[in-house]
């Protein structure tokens, strides 16, 4: 039964609906897979002890003739940034070790209501700050393609779980690329929806104006199916859009027919220099564009002159918001507490935050506190917000001319664990193409574009669409996926090394 883990969520859902397999069998297969490989991958921080009970309940309800959701019975991995009532939620931090939330995140509640079976909580950089999961307080996740390499971050756990066939689909969160960059380095698919398209309620906030929850999967259709489940207005999140959304799964299915590429105008950004990119990444990107052109797409150069300031603006806005969002972790009401005999409450707060936060978190809290300080606000936070507006304007102007914009999802393939952990600037620059998407609030998807010639590691291509045009990305993404998988003669992940056993 272990090949149940190789099925896409869509195929597994089909077999479940047809009664060919039970959710208990599917869930057991994934639990077995986790038991076999997660010692090496370390994608999970917590594996549910009652996933089989949940699966059995779905099977019972299905047997009883109940009308269930399309993904009912399909296992799901959940990034630890999302709070859950039945499993601890730590956001990768020591300060929340063992923390149990009294409520479920909206996306988790919607997934449960749709009959998905939570398998466990996935590893991440502490409070989603990082691009490698090396900043997790619970040890790094390893890339299934090469266990000595990073799986991306912050959502390396969700991407690695899906890439290692420990889960068919997963939930992630993306503040500057935390869904898309891990997808890029693990040969998987990751979608950051339009800001406000998916509820943030119950997502432990990093930077409120940038955070967005989204799906992680091995195929575009699977992300679309999960997006259909979790998306839509949530009265608990004031920034949640009230739009009625089309079916993303329908868009993906339509895209897979290939028609979507005919006459599609694809923008490439003139100011994005090849020089900053690993040759194999650039080559893969160009090859994917050429394939699209051959299939009828038109490649158009567009200008986004402020794109290059994105990283700088991002590293002011994010720390500023994070410094405030993380103030609640003070030991008074929940979480870790370091007692200071004879100390004041301020002493206890300070000692707890000193012991409970890792270096990267402290770095950003200090940076953000400084950026918001009186006398510096205008120069830092204020200027960064202006850059943000300029980037939004760049996108507006570009989208007046093209349907989607394409970029490499990240400048390099997966780097070695430890390689950049002491060089924050290099680490930050890894998100150069994903960050502007969050700053503008528009949707972006990363899908595999191939393997880099020099290291044989996966590369992703990112497509960006105007706000609210998430369906367009599923249409285009599925079309390009079909095109490339045909060329490869099968999914990219079929070429990943076999995991299992001990290293």
């Amino acid at each position, binding site marked *: 039964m272990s090949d149940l883990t190789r099925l896409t969520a869509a195929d597994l859902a089909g077999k479940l609906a047809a009664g060919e397999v039970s959710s208990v069998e599917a869930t057991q297969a994934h639990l077995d897979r986790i038991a076999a490989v997660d010692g090496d991958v370390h994608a999970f921080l917590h594996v549910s002890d009652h996933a089989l009970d949940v699966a059995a309940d779905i099977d019972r309800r299905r047997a009883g003739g109940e009308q269930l959701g399309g993904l009912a019975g399909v296992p799901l991995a959940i990034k630890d940034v*999302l*709070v859950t009532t039945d499993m601890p*939620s730590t*956001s990768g931090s020591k300060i*929340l070790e063992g*923390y149990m*939330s*009294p*409520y479920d*995140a909206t996306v988790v509640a919607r997934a449960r209501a749709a009959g998905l079976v939570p398998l466990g909580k996935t590893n991440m950089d502490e409070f989603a700050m990082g691009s490698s999961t090396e900043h997790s307080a619970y040890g790094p996740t390893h890339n299934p393609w090469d266990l000595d390499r990073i799986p991306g971050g912050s959502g390396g756990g969700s991407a690695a779980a899906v890439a290692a066939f420990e889960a068919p689909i997963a939930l992630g969160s993306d503040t500057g690329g935390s869904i898309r960059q891990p997808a890029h380095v693990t040969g998987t698919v990751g979608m950051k929806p339009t800001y406000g398209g998916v509820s*943030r*309620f*119950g*997502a*432990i*906030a990093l*930077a*409120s*104006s940038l955070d967005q929850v989204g799906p992680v999967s091995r195929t575009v259709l699977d992300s679309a199916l999960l997006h259909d489940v979790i998306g839509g207005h949530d*009265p*608990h*999140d*004031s*920034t949640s859009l009230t739009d009625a959304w089309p079916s993303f799964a329908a868009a993906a299915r339509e895209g897979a027919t290939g028609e979507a590429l005919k006459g599609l105008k694809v923008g490439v950004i003139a100011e994005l220099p090849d020089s900053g990119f690993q040759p194999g990444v650039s080559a893969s990107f160009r090859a994917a564009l050429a394939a699209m052109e051959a299939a009828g797409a038109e490649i158009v150069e567009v200008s986004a002159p402020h794109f290059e300031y994105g990283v700088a603006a991002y590293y002011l806005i994010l720390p*500023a*918001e994070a*410094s*405030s969002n993380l*103030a*609640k972790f*003070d030991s*008074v*009401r*929940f979480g870790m507490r370091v007692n200071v005999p004879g100390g004041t*409450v*301020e002493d206890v*707060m300070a000692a707890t935050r000193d012991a409970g936060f890792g270096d990267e978190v402290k770095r950003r809290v200090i940076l953000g*506190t400084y950026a*918001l*300080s*009186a006398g510096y*606000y205008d120069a830092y*936070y204020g200027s960064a917000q202006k850059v943000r507006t300029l980037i939004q304007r760049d996108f507006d102007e570009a989208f007046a001319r093209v349907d989607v914009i394409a970029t490499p999802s990240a400048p390099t393939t997966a780097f070695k664990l430890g390689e950049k952990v002491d060089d924050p600037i290099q680490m930050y620059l890894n998100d150069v193409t994903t960050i502007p998407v969050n700053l503008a609030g528009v949707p972006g998807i990363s899908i595999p574009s191939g393997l880099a010639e020099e290291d044989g590691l996966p590369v992703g291509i990112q497509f960006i669409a105007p706000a609210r045009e998430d369906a367009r990305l599923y249409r285009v993404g599925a079309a390009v996926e079909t095109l490339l998988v045909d060329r490869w003669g099968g999914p990219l992940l079929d070429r990943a090394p076999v995991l299992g056993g001990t290293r």
Partner: protein
Amino acid sequence: MAKDKLLDFDKALELYEPVLGFEVHVELNTATKMFSSAANPANSANHEAGPNTLVAPVDMGLPGSLPVVNETAVRYSISLGLALGCSIAPSSRFARKNYFYPDLGKNYQISQYDEPIAFEGSVEIELGDGTLVTVPIERAHMEEDAGKLTHMGGATGRIQGAEYSLVDYNRAGVPLVEIVTKPIFGAEHRAPEIAKAYVAAIRDIVISLGISEARMERGNLRCDANVSLRPRGQEKLGTRTETKNVNSMRSVERAVRYEIQRQAAILAAGGTITQETRHWHEDTGTTSPGRPKSDADDYRYFPEPDLLPVEPSAELIEKLRAALPEPPAIRRRRLKADWGFTDLEFQDVVNGGLLAEVEQTVAAGAAPAAARKWWTGEITRVANAQGVEASALVEPQAVAAVQKLVDAGTLTDKLARQVLEGVIAGEGSPQEVVDARGLAVVSDDGALIAAIDDALAAQPDVLAKIRDGKVQAAGAVIGAVMKAMRGQADAARVRELVLERAGS
């Protein structure tokens, strides 16, 4: 703490011009909190709730929680802004005010900073002698209240020296409107009186709008009073102090007077005023320094990214404007005419800050004169003796109920005062106090006649005098009867019966 030297008030005014400013916090009485679905303890229905029972994840700052703006609170804030004569911003924003303190679950307060919902208005207030003063309003903005800390183990209940502190998050997230005045010039020797009248006016406004319970003793309405002095003839404003949380109208008056005298003493001696917050002490009638307030306070304000701007439609604003109750000055004129009070009687009510109380007592069925007598008389007397606000002692409905018992002949005035005393002491409703204390007038003629016959028999000389037509002699018998009835008889009825029995 060294006792502050004070300069004589008149002397102080001779040397310096006081400049005032007020920040009044109004807790709105919405059903739920500003940003969460938890019940609002500033609504009377929830006032008695136990500690930490009125909380939602947002109020505790739990991971993943998000605020959602209370629409009713926004409407109340707009109404209040309009009643203060303010312009309503077509778009206003919330901001985060960041500081670490355990009374805030998130360690930041959601407030409004550079874009308040209401700005530029004025309030007309009336002083004791009927003088009208216009107080300029800078802004009114929405924010959330903080939780309540109780410091345990210290000598004075203050944080200094406390062993530990208890936190109650019920109040965290209660909707607040903060009303900030512009500097008030020209108050002169009436500064303390203006302070009191201003708070009374705000209280009248929020009560007439029905947006707050406005009970100062519960903290529904809290006043921070800013006072500075400048030497006569000087243009530049002096350094101000901010006296925090002065929680009765009487205290506001006293605190302003005290600060004028204290600052004047320092300045007259060649000293300088420290810019600081100060605490008012009701028991000693003094203020003491809190923390120094300086530019070092950095709240790192930035726009609240979890909330969208508040953008009320022009239609909503006009609808709320149309629904405003009459302005206080017009209301006062109407009430005075309706009630038929003399100038003096009416000023008594206004000066006592009892306009709303009398109005509500009248609305509950009491005659205006009776309502006025209760509030400006007995209730004010008890309040002064206890050092609390008259409005805090008893509900207008209870006062009306007591008066109803008087009108029905069930209580004499004297008994009524005892009943009121019982109501104030928390013994229950007026009727319950009457029943429990057995205070009703004896209206059973049989019992009275028996007592009268006994008294007449005991004083045959008096009986003879009455029979001789010396009716005033009846007083001695009436006195004896009233004594026998322990005062619980209607003296007029006793008199009637005495004459009747003596004549037969």
